[in-house]
């Protein structure tokens, strides 16, 4: 222990300037990321605003018990996982297909323009996406109902049909991230050695065979890395997306409430902070465990795919 401390002081003396350069980032991360974690103790307390985080009384696991007994805990966990799995599969699949097709287009100008357009949704805020959702689905003036009326069909009030929303959310998630994800896959595809393709076409492979037996296997490492990164976030809902698309629409909560939106709403209503913190803690701990397990398993199978 003594030598350890000596080593550190020696190192600090030797590289004083480097430590000074690190200090701002360390301080910022400490204050804005690490210190708020201490607030998680509220999960085990009966929080009262006037008593503060550390003054409030302990109540053991009561917050967790209440969350799961009320059914909310299960509901939001189920929704979060289902949405993430659904979003993961659709958005990655669409991005891979788009990336393969874009790289196969041989008119450079067309390729460039379409890729730019598909990348566009990444650059706008979720507030604007919320506007789009409203433009399409609102009952009186939405595009969907305009279309239905002009076809002589009956109008749909999407905001009272919870069953529709998994598809809507999934569609907009893919829409927003397709450009971003396909950039990654396009980079992976263009990194494939051109000679392999040449050899294949000399051997008489047609375009479908080349994609099936060269492109897809070559981008497999990228696909796996992307999946792993997402699996680590399986219990984290994209708050900005859910909040802007669904809003505070009570009718849709059963179908669209994820952990993050639930936490936010409780914060907004300033009700039961303890239970809300319990939900956050539960989410963070499970996420950490999942990432560690997945990483361990992946490391055993193939060291190269491990995240850390």
């Amino acid at each position, binding site marked *: 222990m003594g030598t350890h401390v000596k080593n550190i002081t020696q190192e600090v003396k030797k590289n004083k*300037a480097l430590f000074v350069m690190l200090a701002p980032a360390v301080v910022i991360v400490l204050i804005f990321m690490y210190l708020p974690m201490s607030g998680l103790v509220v999960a085990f307390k009966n929080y009262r605003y006037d008593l503060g985080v550390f003054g409030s009384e302990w109540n053991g696991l009561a917050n967790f018990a209440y969350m799961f007994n009320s059914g909310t805990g299960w509901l939001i966990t189920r929704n979060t996982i289902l949405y993430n799995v659904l979003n993961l599969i659709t958005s990655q699949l669409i991005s891979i297909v788009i990336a393969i097709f874009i790289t196969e287009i041989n008119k450079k100008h067309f390729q460039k323009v379409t890729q730019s357009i598909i990348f566009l949704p990444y650059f706008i805020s979720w507030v604007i996406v919320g506007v789009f959702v409203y433009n399409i689905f609102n009952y009186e003036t939405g595009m969907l109902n305009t279309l239905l009326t002009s076809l002589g069909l009956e109008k749909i009030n999407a905001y009272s049909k919870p069953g529709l929303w998994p598809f809507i959310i999934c569609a907009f998630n893919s*829409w927003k991230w397709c450009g971003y994800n396909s950039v990654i896959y396009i980079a992976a595809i263009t990194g494939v050695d051109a000679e392999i393709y040449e050899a294949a076409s000399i051997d008489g492979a047609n375009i479908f065979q080349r994609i099936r037996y060269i492109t897809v296997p070559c981008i497999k490492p990228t696909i796996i890395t992307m999946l792993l990164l997402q699996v680590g976030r399986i219990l984290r809902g994209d708050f900005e997306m859910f909040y802007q698309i669904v809003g505070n629409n009570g009718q849709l909560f059963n179908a669209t409430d994820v952990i993050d939106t639930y936490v936010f709403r409780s914060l907004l209503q300033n009700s039961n902070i303890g239970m*809300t913190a319990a*939900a956050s803690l539960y989410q963070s701990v499970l996420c950490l465990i999942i990432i560690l397990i997945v990483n361990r398993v992946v490391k055993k199978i193939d060291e190269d795919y491990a995240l850390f």
Partner: protein
Amino acid sequence: MKESKTKIKGSKSTKAFNVICYTVVSIAAMVCLLPFIILVSGSFSSEQAIRFEGYGLLPKEFTTAAYELIFKVPQTVIKAYGISIFITAVGTIFGLILIAMTAYVISRKDFKYRNVFSFFFYFTTLFNGGMVCTYIFYIQYLHLKDSLWALILPGMFNVFYLLIMRTFVSAIPTALIESAKIDGAGEFRTFFSVILPLLKSGMATIGMFLALGYWNDWYNAMLYINSEDKYPLQYMLYSLLQKAQALANIAGQASIPVADLPSNSLKMAMAVVATGPIILVYPFVQKYFVKGITIGSVKG
């Protein structure tokens, strides 16, 4: 790759594939573009037309009334633009220096604790306090309620950007650092006059990500900002949308003719005003994002 493709052009499967290829990509591009067209056409449509015919691809009863209404009292918009530009500029500049400096230190092979500090930063992506604890801590202990710092500080440092920047730093030969040292330059001198000039493309890339993040942020404003004159652009738009919604609901309940109130086209026009700069700028800067995303997807 491209030559080989032209050589075998003409085979049936290639032709069929090309048709599928162009169709799918065209449809995807159209789907991505369509909402923007509807938005712009809605902003130029008359309120009456939107009420009775709904949104369409082309403006109905072309009018600039909504824009005129916005710029009749331009203070709100200008103020919000000012706030957004301010937090974007300040946050991006300080964030860049912070991230570059940190990336430089943790990529120095001769810095013994670089792995310890890397883990210290990386851990925050694995575990965090979540929204409630962060909110309570920022408000009760850091007193950030209604302060512009709440919009700037939390977004300034990001581990993902740090890792990308580290890749850029690693590309700089260590011999340069050593020769600077031999010439008698201190660590700071080495960083600011040798490393930083070589990090231009890394700085441009991360700068773009930071700037986009600040520009599009509405979430921190929703949590921490109370006074309307501190609303950044995106949150101003959001609160306006909510108000227009509430107004329309009230008017509807009180059977006041809503048509007098150009709420729909106004919303669209406001969204155009808030998004315009990004759409105009993004074709020129997207190459930086492509670079950053590509580097970020390959773990450092």
